[in-house]
């Protein structure tokens, strides 16, 4: 035991201090700057090696392949450039972390928002069919975390058919499909049926992803979604009156 203590002490004493500004700011290790000179002042970092986060280290992500990163960054940058500095400031989003195979407790996920650290971690390898829309979906979670009191789930549930029930949580259900329904019937995707918060995120992401005519058609044909779209529209207007879908 003494031997290990001595080794530990020696390791501490001989390891030079490496000050890491990014780690000090957002408490995620192994990151480097990818792009910080952006119009809306979003700062993009990428993982130079894998990292684990959380009290139980249950959040994991790998360092991305450089070529993949280059390609995906262009897409991510374009999508997030849609958000103004003013809007991002109101929703408290400043840092984007790009990595690969992001997971929470072994379950793959497209993104993880951290409202306190103003950070959104994005998996650049997430299903490419839905990648662009999913970024908006994750941004909604940032919005929702920042304005919890604004997005009332009880009010939201009232929009659905009275017999419909969401699952207990987004990962305790088999409803994970992200393909947009042709006949919506109150939900844009199967995943929207998982929880009220995921449903809101799916509505928000579709409002930004689909063109205005498509949204207009859906509003005419689906009264439930029409209510949900109006709800999101109204709440976002409260946050930032200048934001347009």
């Amino acid at each position, binding site marked *: 035991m003494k031997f290990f203590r001595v080794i530990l002490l020696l390791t*501490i*004493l*001989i*390891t*030079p*201090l490496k*000050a890491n*500004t*990014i780690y000090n*700011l957002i408490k995620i290790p192994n990151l480097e*700057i990818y792009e*910080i000179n952006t119009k809306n*002042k979003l*700062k993009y970092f990428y993982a130079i090696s894998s990292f684990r986060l959380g009290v139980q280290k249950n959040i994991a992500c790998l360092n991305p392949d450089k070529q993949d990163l280059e390609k995906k960054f262009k897409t991510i940058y374009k999508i997030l450039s849609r958000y103004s500095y003013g809007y991002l400031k109101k929703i408290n989003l*400043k840092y984007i972390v790009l990595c690969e195979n992001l997971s929470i407790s072994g379950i793959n996920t497209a993104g993880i928002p951290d409202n*306190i*650290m103003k950070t959104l971690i994005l998996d650049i390898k997430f299903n490419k069919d839905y990648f662009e829309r999913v970024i908006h979906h994750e941004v909604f979670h940032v919005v929702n975390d920042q304005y919890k009191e604004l997005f009332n789930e009880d009010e939201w549930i009232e929009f659905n058919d009275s017999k419909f029930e969401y699952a207990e949580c987004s990962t305790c259900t088999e409803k994970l499909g992200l393909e947009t329904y042709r006949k919506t019937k109150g939900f844009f995707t199967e995943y929207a049926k998982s929880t009220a918060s995921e449903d809101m995120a799916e509505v928000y992401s579709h409002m930004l992803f689909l063109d205005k005519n498509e949204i207009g058609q859906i509003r005419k044909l689906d009264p439930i979604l029409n209510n949900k779209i109006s709800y999101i529209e109204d709440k976002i207007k409260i946050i930032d009156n200048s934001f347009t879908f």
Partner: protein
Amino acid sequence: MIKRIKASTSEKIILIFLILLLVSTLGTYFVIKNECLFIKNFDPKIINFKNPNNIAILNAPCGNVIIELYPEVSPNGVKRFITLIETNAYDDVAFHRVIKDKLVQAGDLEFGRKETLDYGKIGTGKSGLGNIKSEIENEFNYVKGSVGLARTFKNDTEDSQFFIILQDEPLFEGEYTPVGKVIYGLEVLKKIKHQRHSEYILRPDFINTFRMLD
């Protein structure tokens, strides 16, 4: 009768070598011991400043650090900073957090004073004047020598602690309230005591005085 033996040439060379070795050893010892030897100490009285009302002089162990304050960038932050400077609140306060060639941090008025230094709490102390709001809206380039107000993880928690960066830190823009920039004496800060394996310093250096230019 004692016969005088003359030193041979090689013995003379060895003697001269030993004398030179002694002189260089002693010389080196004193040069190394005086860490401030090659640091220029700027005298604010002989410098012409554009905005003399916004000049503050921090006197550290190796000399003066002359800081220009920017009230137009962070009015409330600078106001708080000047209030504390004018009440001599920073005198004998420790540079408690120092990262070599990166930053020095000081200003813990509660646990960082020479006479009441508390290693267990240093860095968490308050001034008693309360927190002020972060001023991070105005553009400010955090280049080497910039002075900012330290805070907790949350915004609007700035109080008396401040830091000075020794290298450019573009990520600090929009994060920390800037209050000014070192215009003379950055080298003085590079000599502030640091530790190789810790940001927090055991037996730290202290601010001697911190005054506004008369």
